[in-house]
């Protein structure tokens, strides 16, 4: 049985069905890249996995245990499944260090000093140790996103969901964020990422999934998806990406 399993996931907003029965299994240490046009359901899929959105039908299993539906302690689940957002969403009223230590201290029961030491260690790894006392509005977008990743990592998640984490960044800041994701992939963290960075997806993904209008249309190893996609839709999507000069 796979580590993270999605089975027949359905989600509608009003009358509009955003996810039309998604099946996906993710093995431990796999990096899955979700690609597809805006509105294809990438973000919604990620938000459903850690229960930020309730799902209408289907199940999510983590390590064999059903973690969707009624009666599941979502607060507990979210300690296992971390999420990083497109717009960073750092808490503006707290310093970088407080952003990172808030959850470990309040939820993880870690002593403040220990949480501090661990946060500083993580910040050193992303090259932001000296900005520990800065407030988010003093950081560049790339720095904020690196802090947001560290904030999520500080809870020691078993799966990391990354929702278009470079889409809000200026082009010259994308690399510093992707570098961290690359390191995490090399260390074997299981990740699900929605992205428009095709080159990066091709490099880092174990598998690439193409979503189209709420359906998982095609999945496969990156080389296959990017060079000889089976589906016409995938081909058209990749063609438009190439025309925009993004691959």
């Amino acid at each position: 049985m796979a580590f993270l399993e999605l089975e027949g996931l359905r989600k509608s907003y009003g009358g509009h069905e955003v996810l039309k029965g998604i099946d996906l299994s993710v093995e431990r240490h796999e990096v899955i890249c979700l690609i597809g046009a805006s509105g294809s359901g990438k973000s919604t899929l990620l938000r459903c996995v850690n229960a930020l959105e309730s799902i209408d039908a289907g199940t999510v299993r983590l390590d064999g245990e059903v973690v969707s539906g009624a009666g599941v302690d979502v607060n507990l689940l979210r300690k296992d499944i971390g999420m990083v957002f497109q717009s960073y969403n750092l808490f503006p009223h707290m310093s970088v260090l407080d952003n990172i230590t808030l959850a470990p201290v309040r939820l993880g029961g870690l002593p403040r000093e220990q949480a501090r030491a661990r946060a500083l260690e993580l910040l050193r790894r992303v090259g932001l140790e000296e900005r520990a006392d800065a407030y988010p509005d003093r950081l560049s977008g790339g720095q904020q996103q690196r802090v947001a990743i560290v904030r999520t990592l500080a809870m020691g998640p078993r799966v990391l969901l990354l929702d278009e984490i470079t889409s809000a960044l200026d082009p010259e800041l994308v690399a510093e964020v992707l570098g961290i994701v690359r390191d995490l992939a090399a260390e074997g963290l299981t990740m699900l990422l929605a992205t428009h960075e095709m080159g990066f997806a091709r490099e880092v993904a174990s598998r690439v999934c193409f979503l189209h209008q709420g359906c998982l249309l095609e999945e496969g190893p990156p080389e296959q998806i990017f060079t000889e996609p089976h589906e016409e839709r995938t081909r058209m999507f990749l063609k438009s990406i190439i025309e925009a000069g993004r691959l």
Partner: protein
Amino acid sequence: MTAQQTLLGGASAAPERAQPVPAPARGFAAAGMTGAALATAATWAVAADLVGAATAGPWRWALGAVAVAGALAVLAVFRPAWDAWRASRACAAALEETDVVAARRLAARVRESAWTALGAALAVLCALGAIVFVLANDAAVQKTFLDGALMWASFPDIARAFATNLVIAVVAQALVLVWALVLALARLAPGRAGRPIRRLATFYIDAVRAVPAIIVIYLIGFGLPLAEVPLLSGLNQTWYAILALTVVYGAYVAEVFRAGIESIHPSQIAASRSLGFSYLATMRHVVVPQATRRVIPPLLNDFISLQKDTALVNVIGSIDAFNQAKILAANNFNLSSVTVVAVLFILITIPQARLVDRLLTRERST
């Protein structure tokens, strides 16, 4: 390629627009001069009146000095008026030499200076109107509202009573902060389980805001002692006032808090929830701290209203500044003591109003 095919839609083919030839704006200059002359004449008339009305003694000298200073100060209105006049003549000269650019610049200066003179003249005339009103009917207004001797004599008693207003205001403000936050959170209680609490809080806020504050004060101040509720009925008048104002302003400030909480972007809540925080923990650590910062200016506005409404407590007989002033006013058949109360409220309120403005400016700049 024809014009329709470009993205600009052929905008480059638009006809050239020419600036009109300026006029020397003599009318403006004349109006500025007239305004200055009018303001000066009126000021001198009132100044003469003021000196004539004053009784003998040092008071007369002081008034005389003020009158002379005013009569001289009003001459400043002639400065922009004279500037407009000169610019108008220079403009005419420039036009004669067909220097259109210089003429345009001078014409603009005429208008600017003339408007400055007219604005100053209007302000002077308004101020004179107020002085004339005070001096009307042989200075009856001044004697009724601004009797210097009586104001001086009643000041100590009123200032002492004003301390009661301040105590009521400060304690009520502290209680309102807590109560309003509870109400706001209750009004936003999530889900089906939160619905009864939500409805109850909404009803409280709607109902209390519908009832005039003076009625709530009356009901609590006279009702609680009559009802002989244990604990609550033994309080003194000041506490009833504090209680009533907390009930009333809790509802207003709850709406301020609610607006602040709702203004926090949902992505902040998503981030906090995704870390594993519960709804209440998210409110406590993420939403409310940010919301509170955001609502400080409107919060202070409500607090200023609360301070002023401390004067309403005189209906239940607490000896606050207003009640004390009314006693003095009745004894002397003169309202100058009430003016003292008004002045005290102005003195504590204006600095806070300015503070709110500064906070708002700072908020907009960040």
